[in-house]
């Protein structure tokens, strides 16, 4: 059976310019220009990533700190532009690099849901359709007209998380967020992921091999900005654990 490719990454390169000294001042910038100092160092983060992701795969991306996982995720989310290479995305991609981005403590829960939805590119009408579902999953209906600053921190992440997983996107990007809140809510999140495993395309960056084994249908180990191993969750989890031994 031919499977649909939803994300296709070809030969992706990304590097950052890291300032070598403080150049956030005009004076310094002019001095550096005069002295011929570039003022930054090229840091190569992704060095030729090739990757195909198929519809309804639950992909775990693992790797050591600084290996380029998050940069890859942010490049997929179009937050960073690719320096070289191409990314083809087929479908609506909903990124959650961090929970509760754009949340404003002075707004009510309801307003925050709509604002967050707008930031993710959903229209008010689309949000109307998702609203009840989000509120029910978060179990926060009685608090929707209260300001977010009066929520407990657990309630805030529950709301953020519910938007993340109930937003009707084709592809979901998650950075190190799977289960939040108290034990009961965490269980609910875990059940939810087991339930949708194989029914939605999800890309998860994580350090938890337990989660990789439990949820993922395929895993990828990133090392030094390259795909080092691409295979079954078990194989990748073992290789990852070996990095230390």
């Amino acid at each position, binding site marked *: 059976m031919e499977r649909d490719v939803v994300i296709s990454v070809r030969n992706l390169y990304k590097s950052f310019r890291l300032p070598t000294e403080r150049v956030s001042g005009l004076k310094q910038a002019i001095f550096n220009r005069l002295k011929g100092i570039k003022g930054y160092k090229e840091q190569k983060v992704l060095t030729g990533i090739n990757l195909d992701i198929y519809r309804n795969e639950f992909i775990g991306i693992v790797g050591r700190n600084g290996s380029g996982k998050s940069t890859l995720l942010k490049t997929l989310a179009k*937050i960073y532009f690719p320096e070289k290479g191409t990314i083809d995305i087929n479908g609506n*991609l909903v990124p959650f690099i961090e929970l509760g*981005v754009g949340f404003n403590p*002075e*707004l009510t829960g309801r307003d925050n849901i709509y604002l967050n939805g*707008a930031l993710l590119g959903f229209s008010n009408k689309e949000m109307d359709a998702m609203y009840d579902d989000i509120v029910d999953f978060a179990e926060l209906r009685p608090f929707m007209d209260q300001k977010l600053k009066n929520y407990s921190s657990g309630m805030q992440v529950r709301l953020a998380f519910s938007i993340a997983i109930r937003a009707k996107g084709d592809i979901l990007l998650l950075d190190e967020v799977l289960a939040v809140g108290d034990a009961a809510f965490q269980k609910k999140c875990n059940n939810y992921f087991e339930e949708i495993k194989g029914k939605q395309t999800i890309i998860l960056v994580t350090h938890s091999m337990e989660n990789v084994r439990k949820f993922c249908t395929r895993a990828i180990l990133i090392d030094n900005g390259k795909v080092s191993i691409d295979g079954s969750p078990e194989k990748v989890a073992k290789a990852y654990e070996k990095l230390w031994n």
Partner: protein
Amino acid sequence: MAIPNFLYKNNRVLLKELTKTDFKLRYQNSVLGYLWALLRPLMMFAILYIVFAKLLRFGGDIPHYPVYLLTGTVLWSFFTECTMQGIRAIVQRGELLRKICFPKYIVVVSTTLTAVINLLINLVVVVIFALINGVTPSPTWLLVPLLILEIYAFALGISFLLGAINVKFRDITSIWEVLIQALFYAIPIIYPIAMIASAAPIAAKIILLNPIAQVIQDIRYCLITKETITIWNYVDNVFLQIIPFAIVFIVLIWGSWYFRKKSKRFAEEI
């Protein structure tokens, strides 16, 4: 999702949501709430009126001088607020830009639109003052929206240009603060331009080439009194008359182009 297009519906939704939020938040937790949007320029007006109209007697023979002064301060407050907030907008929303991909210009436009809403509220006050002061409504009032569009385009262009530079060089905000102080005295807001015109006609003509001065004088002409000196009745060369518009046009185009070019690296550089 690919092309940041103003006509793209979801971008309009985002613009609306951000503007609504900005406006809502600005006056939250204050007892007088939205009234502050009105009170600030009115208080500035009261001070300037006492100092310049009553103590220094700047008004001279200009009819409806208090309204004339109020119009100037309201427009100046708008320009200052618009550019100051617009230039800072990207840096202030930095956290957001690093986590979600959305058209960056929306942040600048939404922030400056809040200033536009404030201006519109203030203009209602100006009109009420004008009517109380005995100004008769005239068809030229209808030209005011076009002039507001011009000054907004100028402020937006500056916000795009300097806001993009501000991401890397934060000094821009401070430099602009100083510049705008200087600009305040280079524009006939508190003093009537007639004072300059009688002493040094050339200087008055140069002042009128500044788009902000041109707009303020034009709005005073349209709204209050036909005895206002404007670029149209004071500078007689057609090529000189189009200079303010050319400045606005160039700044807006250059600003948008530069912003667009730099915006793809904002997430990395903030």
